[in-house]
């Protein structure tokens, strides 16, 4: 059914911290690994070892250079489906394969009924949907619908694969419809924003902006201590064992 639910009980989504994302691609590879055998499996690749490799991925990590000179910065920018509240990708679908779940707001494609007309990809301003050339259907982020409710997994694993994989904690998962949830608080605290809200699709996923840049005036503390804490060694340099290890280190280093 491509007509949208009036409301959804939850608004599950991601909050992505552009300040701490390091562009390591762990979320993208973890996503691909989980989802190539998950809900919308497979995620096929074409010409994977040839001259023109490409394939269906549900998460793409861009890196941008923003600003000029001293105020310039690198921002890593993960891009995936934003699970919009009123997504055009769903309403343009002629078959009902694309739908938004009334229970949790997740936007899904039914791979059993999708005809692969690609119109949803034309309707999405965020480039979030990708066509699977081998499977003949559209693929998109499922918010790991097959993980988050999966009771055979450990509780800490019941989050999207990208969130679980992120080594810097730049990805957060939760109910953005609940103003008391951790993700909603994070968005309020850090000034989370929507991508191109002018389209009116009301993205659920939010992005947290990079924090203000620190320089000599804002990062140095009063006593000019270096930012990295000095390692305090409790070893007494005159002790016999310490001298032994210093000697051993020298010998082994030859």
């Amino acid at each position, binding site marked *: 059914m491509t007509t949208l639910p009036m409301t959804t009980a939850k608004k599950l989504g991601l909050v992505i911290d552009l300040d701490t994302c390091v562009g390591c691609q762990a979320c993208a590879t973890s996503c691909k690994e989980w989802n190539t055998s998950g809900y919308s499996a497979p995620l096929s690749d074409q010409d994977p070892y040839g001259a023109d490799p490409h394939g269906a991925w549900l998460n793409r990590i861009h890196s941008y250079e923003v600003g*000029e000179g001293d105020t310039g910065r690198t921002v890593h920018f993960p891009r995936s489906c934003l699970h919009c509240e009123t997504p055009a990708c769903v309403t343009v679908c002629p078959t009902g394969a694309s739908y938004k779940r009334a229970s949790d707001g997740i936007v899904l494609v039914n791979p059993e009924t999708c005809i692969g007309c690609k119109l949803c990809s034309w309707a999405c301003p965020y480039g979030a949907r990708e066509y699977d050339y081998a499977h003949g259907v559209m693929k998109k982020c499922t918010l790991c619908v097959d993980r988050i409710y999966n009771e055979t997994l450990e509780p800490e694993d019941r989050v999207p694969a990208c969130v679980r994989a992120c080594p810097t904690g730049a990805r957060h998962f939760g109910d953005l419809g609940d103003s008391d949830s951790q993700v909603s608080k994070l968005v309020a605290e850090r000034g989370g924003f929507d991508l191109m809200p002018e389209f009116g699709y009301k993205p659920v996923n939010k992005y947290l902006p990079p924090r203000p840049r620190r320089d000599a005036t804002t990062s140095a503390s009063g006593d000019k201590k270096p930012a990295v804490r000095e390692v305090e060694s409790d070893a007494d340099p005159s002790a016999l064992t310490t001298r032994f290890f210093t000697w051993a280190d020298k010998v082994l280093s030859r």
Partner: protein
Amino acid sequence: MHPAYSVIYFTCATGAGYGLLIWLAVFAMMGALPLTPAFGLAGLGVSMALVVTGLLSSTSHLGRPERAWRAFSQWRSSWLSREGVFAIATFVPVAVLALGWIVEGRSDGVYAVAAAAAAVSALVTVYCTGMIYQSLPTIRAWNLPMVTPIYLALGLATGAVLMVALMAGFGALAQAHLMLTLAVLGGAWLLKFAYWSTIDGAPREWKIGAATGLGRFGQVRPLDPPHSKPNFVMREMGYQVARKHALKLRRMAIALGFAVPAGLLITVLLGGLQAAAFPLAVLAAMSALAGVLVERWLFFAEAEHVAMLYYGKQEA
């Protein structure tokens, strides 16, 4: 946007087929054409051949053509679904019209109702085709109120030239047909000319800074791409024709779609060439269709998609 040949042929062929159907139905209702079985077979045959091959062509654009029937279900929200529903629904009154015309040689009573229904349904189908494109705010060159009228006008224009060829073939061509066709052809291409002026002049309002939300920190430039070779989004949405090629192709579209057929029809009109009218009109119809094919290729190739902002386009 990637110009898929299956979709280009589909929109051009069904546009011309439904355009011809509308003229045939209207003229049949008015009793303004020969109600002979041969004319009926030829007219409705050409029209339905264009429509059916067009619809079949559209399914070859699908990843799962065997599931195409599912596309009739979401007419409440989807213009593509509505197009499918009306495309199939049109066959019903056409069948009744064909029965009256070809078998009974009549176009009155119930057959007149069928003709009217066929014309309206054909018009609505082409309207839905146009709305599939016009309703997408992600594509600046498509999200314009004149897009659907152009689909209708070019369908009616190519249909009218085909109608002239048929009338000439059956020796029923009148000056009024030629003048009407010239007017429709001129009107359609005038609209298309206005369209090109509009897309050339309109500002590109979507910026990379808005797409990423990073515009507040300064100019945004791509540093590292997410992948080394183009993905689906870049292949489908990133296709773009070089500006100088586009201008050449626009001139070619106008020449083939308007200048050549109009010249040929005027030659027939002023020369009073009854004997040569049929071959000249056939030539005019072929040229008009070729012109619309070029126009439709450009409609895709000149359209830029907002998603390409993530891949380094500064504005869209």
